[in-house]
């Protein structure tokens, strides 16, 4: 039936359905057992009524002949009872095997989706609404799981019953069997016509579910903003629109595809009538017996019932296929280009000396020394709109690089490129002489300790969040890192201490506290290149002064990239990159740049322009 469908825009859904079934391949043996059990069930289920009929004949014989053979009746009924028990046993085995197979398949599908999240380019989450990605991974996978369980159970059963009945019909009367068979193309045609109409609605139903998911994510996460601006009505209108769209698509999908089952029943009834009438005429003509016609009618019932059931499953099939298509679309989304197989030998050699922390487990190789160069690096998030252009600079191992410039000058992008969250459009970046584009990403990133602008923490305890930087770290190391980054102080005041659970998005902590934890996390990681992107922007200044020493110690001997507004940090940097509109407009040391009277000196002066001059001549305290 599937093959008969034309490959239109809906062809993708049938391909998706096919691909879904393909996932059962590794479970071939189990599926064979399912078919065998179903066969056993079907045979016993068809045979039992016949023996029950024989038992009835025994009773009839008793009425007619006066001799009631109770022992024969008992034997027959015992046989029937055993058959029914056997049929139920087979049905149970079939159900259990199918359930296991489906759950395994769905487990694999869910894992595949999750693995995919790790190899999608960072940009994917920018373009795609993250609610939609989530909806695919949860609602659509769940829909596939639920529908597949029902489909596999019933579809196999229906197809077997159908073929069994058909065989019996041909055996009884080829002519009547052909009449019955004539209904098959008609049913198929009807199914195809309806399916083509309803498929688009099913696609729309699950796409709208994704949109709705996005809306809900946004409004529930940003509810304070919505309330603060009194925009509940607008939010409700936007939500209402996608809710309406989902309603329209879902109800259309279901009532259009719901037509199939009644139509199938209608066709099979017409077939039933034709068989009854033609059969009756044949009896009148003397070519068939009444008993023969009656038996035939019974089997044609057995034939049409599963036909109707298959029709009824159309809704389920289409909904399942629409969801499967969305899941596969996510699985097929372009991935980050694969890592080069082996790093250039020179890189490994260069990295061999000066390795502060030794090898990382998992074959990530030795820690880099930290010589970093940018050579004409150019990149834009969308083609034709470069965010950074022609970046050239060189950092020696152990140096601190400060990146300064107005908000939006492209500072964070430099970090994103260095860590290969995004790939360069032109130019190259090297670490210890090796082009990072040729380096496995994980090996590259294993060398970095990062504190990124958004201090993202995970659901889990504070301890687990710090340990994230170095799995398996000892309690002493964790507490030492926490003390150095002033996490210890506020954690000790919490009733549960380090075992305090952080809830949704770390909501129970202030943004400053979250930043401190992510600093502790980076501190613990002990990586040889540090990336600090506005690491302390929300930490209060007294705490910042206190962790400053620790930060300075942390930077010692490590190549560090620092994005900060504090000029104290900037001033001591070995190299200052001044960025403006995606370009490096000045680079050098503090004193050189100050003398240059360019953007840096104007930035620097402006910071102190409006201030009481009393503090402007203080020497830095170290």
């Amino acid at each position, binding site marked *: 039936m599937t093959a008969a469908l034309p490959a239109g825009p809906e062809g993708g859904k049938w391909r998706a359905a096919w691909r879904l079934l393909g996932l059962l391949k590794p479970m071939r043996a189990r599926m064979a057992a399912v078919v065998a059990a179903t066969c056993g069930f079907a045979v016993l289920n068809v045979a039992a009524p016949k023996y*029950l009929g024989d038992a*009835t004949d025994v*009773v*009839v014989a*008793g*009425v007619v002949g006066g001799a009631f053979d109770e022992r024969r009746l008992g034997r027959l*009924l015992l046989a029937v*009872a055993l058959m029914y028990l056997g049929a139920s046993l087979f049905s149970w085995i079939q159900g259990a095997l199918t359930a296991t197979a*489906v*759950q*395994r398949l*769905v*487990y694999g599908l*869910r*894992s595949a989706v*999750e*693995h995919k999240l*790790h190899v999608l380019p960072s940009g994917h*989450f920018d373009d795609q*609404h993250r609610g939609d990605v989530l909806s695919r991974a*949860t609602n659509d996978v769940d829909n596939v799981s639920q529908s597949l369980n029902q489909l596999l159970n019933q579809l196999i059963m229906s197809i077997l019953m159908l073929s069994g009945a058909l065989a019996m019909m041909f055996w009884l009367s080829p002519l009547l069997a052909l009449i019955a068979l004539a209904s098959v193309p008609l049913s198929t045609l009807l199914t195809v016509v309806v399916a083509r109409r309803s498929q688009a609605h099913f696609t729309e139903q699950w796409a709208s579910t994704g949109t709705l*998911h996005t809306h809900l994510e946004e409004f*529930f996460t940003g*509810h*304070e*903003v*919505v309330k*603060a*601006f009194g925009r509940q009505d607008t939010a409700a209108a936007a939500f*209402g629109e996608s809710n309406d769209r*989902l309603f329209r698509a879902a109800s259309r999908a279901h*009532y259009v595809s*719901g037509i199939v089952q009644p139509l199938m*029943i209608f066709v099979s*009834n017409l077939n*039933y*009538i034709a068989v*009854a009438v033609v059969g*009756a005429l044949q009896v009148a003509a003397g070519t068939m017996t009444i008993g023969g*016609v009656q038996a035939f009618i019974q089997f044609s019932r057995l034939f049409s019932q599963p036909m109707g059931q298959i029709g009824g499953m159309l809704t389920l099939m289409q909904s399942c296929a629409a969801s499967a298509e969305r899941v596969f679309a996510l699985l097929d989304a372009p991935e980050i280009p694969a890592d080069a197989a082996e790093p250039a030998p020179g890189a490994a050699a260069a990295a061999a000396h000066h390795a502060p922390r030794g090898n990382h487990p998992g074959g990530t190789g030795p820690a880099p020394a930290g010589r970093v160069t940018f050579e004409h690096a150019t990149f834009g998030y969308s083609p034709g709109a470069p965010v950074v252009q022609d970046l050239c600079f060189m950092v020696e191992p152990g140096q601190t690089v400060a990146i300064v410039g107005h908000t*939006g000058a492209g500072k964070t992008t430099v970090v994103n490129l260095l*860590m290969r*969250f995004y790939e360069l459009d032109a130019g190259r970046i090297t670490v210890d002489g090796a082009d990072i584009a040729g380096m496995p990403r994980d090996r590259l*990133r294993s060398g970095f300790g990062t504190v990124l*602008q958004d201090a*993202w923490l995970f659901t889990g305890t504070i301890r687990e969040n710090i340990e*994230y930087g170095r*799995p398996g770290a000892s309690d002493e190391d964790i507490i030492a890192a926490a003390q150095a980054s002033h996490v210890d102080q506020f954690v000790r005041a919490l009733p549960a201490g380090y075992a305090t659970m952080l809830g949704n*998005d770390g909501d129970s902590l202030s943004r*400053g*506290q979250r930043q401190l934890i*992510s600093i502790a996390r980076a501190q613990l990681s002990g990586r040889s290149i540090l990336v600090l992107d*506005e690491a302390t922007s929300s930490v209060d200044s007294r705490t910042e002064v206190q962790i400053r020493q620790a930060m300075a110690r942390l930077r010692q001997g490590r190549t560090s990239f620092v994005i900060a507004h504090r000029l104290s940090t900037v001033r001591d940097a070995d190299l200052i990159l001044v960025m403006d509109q995606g370009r490096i407009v000045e680079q050098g040391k503090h004193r050189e740049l*100050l003398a240059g009277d360019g953007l840096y000196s104007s930035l620097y002066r*402006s910071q*102190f322009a409006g*201030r009481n001059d009393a*503090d*402007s001549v203080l020497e*830095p305290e170290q």
Partner: protein
Amino acid sequence: MLIKLMGRLLSAHRAAVLAIVCLQLVQTTAGLMLPTLNAAVIDDGIVAGNTPLILRLGAWMAGIAALQVAAAVAAGYLGAIVAMRIGHQLRSDLFTRVQQFSSQDVGTFGAPSLVTRATNDVIQIQNLALLAFTMLAAAPASFLGGIVLAAHQDLPLSGIVAAVIPLLAAVMVLIVRRLIPLYRQGQELLERISRVLREQIIGANVIRGFVRQDHEIRRFDAANRDLTRNNLASALLVARMNPLIMVVVNLSSVAVVWFGGHRIEAGEMRLGALTAFIAYILQILIAIMMAMYVFTTAPRAAVCAERIQAVLDTEPSIAGPPRGGLPPAPQGSAAAEAAPVAPAAGGTVEFRGVSFAYPGAEAPVLSGISFTAVPGSTTAIVGATGSGKTTLLNLLPRFLDPTAGTITLGGRDIRSLPLAALRERMSLVPQHSYLFSGTVADNLRIGGPAATDAELWDALDTAQAGDFVRRLPGGLDAPVSQGGTNFSGGQRQRLCIARALLRPAPVYLFDDSFSALDYVTDRRLRAALDPLLAAATVLIVAERVSTIERADQILVLEDGRLAARGSHAELMETSRTYREIAASQLVLEESP
């Protein structure tokens, strides 16, 4: 819970539901008539050799079949509409309720859980309704009809039916009772899966930065395994129910032949009754199978109904005054109520002995805070990370309610103002610069729905965001992704400031809104803001002394207490804490 929820939802569709039941009855009856007519074809047509009668009866059968299909299609149509309406209604109810929630209420459930409840949980209920309309509507008729007809044929033999029904009920109850806790756990596990995935999407760069993909994969796998194990356990239970019911019903037909045979032999029953009886037992079986199909879906839906009802039953912990339903006229609402307020005092904010503690928490977040902020003045709030600054600000728009003390706005307790009217009087830049997906203009118009493009540009320029927005391809129509992730932290903050500026209000709240800005931008921004905010009451949470030193009063918070209050100069004299804060910044922003 499920029944209560369904009852409430279906009561709005009474006529449609009644129509569905009637149509399903027509369909069932028509289906039952066909074999009877067929019997007539055989008895009166074939046996009597009456060919015209065969054809006439055939035509009758075709007519009835047509009636059946019409009824079924109509029932299917109505069923789909009503089921989807129910889903639509539930989602809408949930959304409306969550909109009334306070921050604490949302936190109790968690935003991701609320999303799951409004999507997946609703889908389960919708599916159940759909099944019930197509399968359950006709089942009782078929079931009762079967029993009545069976009893009519032979009363003593129906004793078998009477014995079988409690047995079937027992099987179903036993299994369903085990299913319910499994399904409940299942929905929670599904939520856990969704939470892990959500974190992996949002925290992608952190995971990749620390190369913790393997750890994440293991973490997800544990959740995935638990969910799979749970789903399998419930699927296996369902797989056991089907054969159990089948075997009970089938064995009862064996019993019918055995006992029936003996009754016939004893001359207590006619032969025809036996065949009829088996047919009716089958009819009862089909009805039960259909009902069972629905019942296996019901426990999951019941769990979902509970979860949805839990949200709907949660009274928003913060609500407007009892008469808050009145149309909230922005300025005039005060006049409409008992105590009229002089317009000049409209922006005065006063905290009197305000404390706040999370329920169950040992230490309060804020305790005994008192201060007054008047129009035309700026009040800055400083303090260490975690000292309660954001909480203090969140009390004003009533995202949270104080556990003790009162807050007044324009002389009136803010709890006596309708929420909408209260919030209309303030414009907020939240700590977390949250933007919505859409365009830059869409986001700005959250602040000023009626603003013209020129006004948007004005606000952007004041917020020092004009330059970078002009450079974006598309300008005001440039896309913003969910949460604003395609903008840098500083850009987001400035867009949020512009959004707030588009909503002129007597009170402005800036929660750490300048931290991601570089000093030049910060300075320019404040210079541009000053004239705009000259007449307003401004509350600023900030870190930088340079941002706050010109504030009219500065509140220094320490561990939730007001440690000191005064101007920069005063505090430099009197407050050690403030001096430390100022000194620490000099260290950090040390001069040449």
